[in-house]
């Protein structure tokens, strides 16, 4: 049963809190403490808006253990409006077709359940924007 590693990451997982580099202003997600742009220390917290667009997407049918109950599910590379890209599931797709470039927004959802007795892991997923003009 994994507990501490998920607990440690709760701020970024639940709420998309990353970092901004105080030297070059690059927005960083996931947080990594050393700016990938200028290699300086970057530990200033930054709240991302949760808005982005689909860079690419696909469907997982053959899921890893711990994820079978939700299969098939859609995973994507999402480019946040602030710049960084991240990997996340798309959810609440309904019958809407997904497209590269589709605007999406962050929601906090269940990522996995560590067995019947283990902890529930929550984190970011993305869905088609609920309100078109919520930019």
């Amino acid at each position, binding site marked *: 049963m994994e507990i501490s590693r998920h607990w440690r990451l709760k*701020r970024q997982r639940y709420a998309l809190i990353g970092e901004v580099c105080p030297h070059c202003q690059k927005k960083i997600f996931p947080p990594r403490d050393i700016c990938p742009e200028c290699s300086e220390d970057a530990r200033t917290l930054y709240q991302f808006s949760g808005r982005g667009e689909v860079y690419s997407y696909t469907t997982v049918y053959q899921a890893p253990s711990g994820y079978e109950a939700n299969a098939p599910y859609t995973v994507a590379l999402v480019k946040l409006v602030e710049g960084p890209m991240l990997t996340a599931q798309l*959810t*609440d797709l309904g019958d809407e077709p997904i497209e590269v470039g589709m605007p999406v927004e962050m*929601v*906090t*959802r269940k990522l996995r359940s560590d067995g019947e007795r283990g902890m*529930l892991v*929550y984190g970011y997923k993305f869905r088609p924007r609920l309100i078109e003009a*919520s930019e």
Partner: protein
Amino acid sequence: MTENQDVPILKPIRDVGIVGYGAYIPRYRLPAREVARVWKAGTGGLSIEEKAVAGLDEDVITMSIEAARNALDRADIDPSEIRAVWVGSESHPYAVKPTSTVVAESIGATPHTQAADWEFACKAGTEAMQAAIGFVGSDMAHFALAIGMDTAQGRPGDPLEYTAAAGGAAFLLGPAEISLAVIEGSYSYATDTPDFFRRAEEKYPEHGERFTGEPAYFKHITSAAETLMQAMDSSPSDFQHVIFHQPNTKFPKRVGRLLGFTDEQIKTGLLVPIIGNVYAGSSLVGLTAVLDVAEPDERILLVSYGSGAGSDAMSLRTTTLLPERRDRAPKTYDYISRRTEIDYATYARYHGKITMK
């Protein structure tokens, strides 16, 4: 204390109101005819059209987070000022471990905050609101967040299965001066009435069938509503909107007529025909739907009902701050109109009714 004695209403030292509100209703819908198809029931007496069903990755925690974010977007305050995050539900994902700490963490309210889960069947959400009114009204806190949210369960084939739905709402309580609706007064009425219950460790609730009506739902709601209106020297015609707990379409309409309200007053907050009974969130999403459209200086009466049994009644008056704030987040009907119909098999899978082990 006897029933007939004059009872003072609940009124805090400083005036409290709703600073922000947010609804959440998941996107999936199970039509009642689909339940009837599977269980070979007739479709003549179906009390609702369809109910909202949570997706595979949703639960009371995730739904509460989204409703809370909507409330915060409307309030536009610093979340670190929220001194209580209280979630009322009868479907908390954990038996032990608070829903509220995850919600508080997600919205940035930690660590200087109270966090607790409330339980009182379908009135756990308004119970949390009452407590939040006291918390802010006593000046212990500037802001307190109260949420009523459920992913309600009904045993397969039970009449509850037609209506037991998922959804709810969050309310950020704060000083009346910056509120979009002021709490004019509230009142709670509770007795030991076992009309509906779920024993610890059991998956599905039991109910007393017709016993859930007269001595339970109707007795408690009418007592709470009448006591509050009497104490406030108000009558049904003073309110533009009234919202009752809505386990089906029939009960809230009937209790409204019993109390002297018109269908017109009930209409805006009556969502059960299209989303089902969202238990702890039931009367609260009715309130968000009303706040989505109400004009400033309108009066709203909210009366919840929780089995076991009790009712919380609240009288609210909207302010001039309402119109600009309601557009800052998705409205109740934005969620209701986002709709994907599912069949019973998909519903069974989403609700874990297909055993995978």
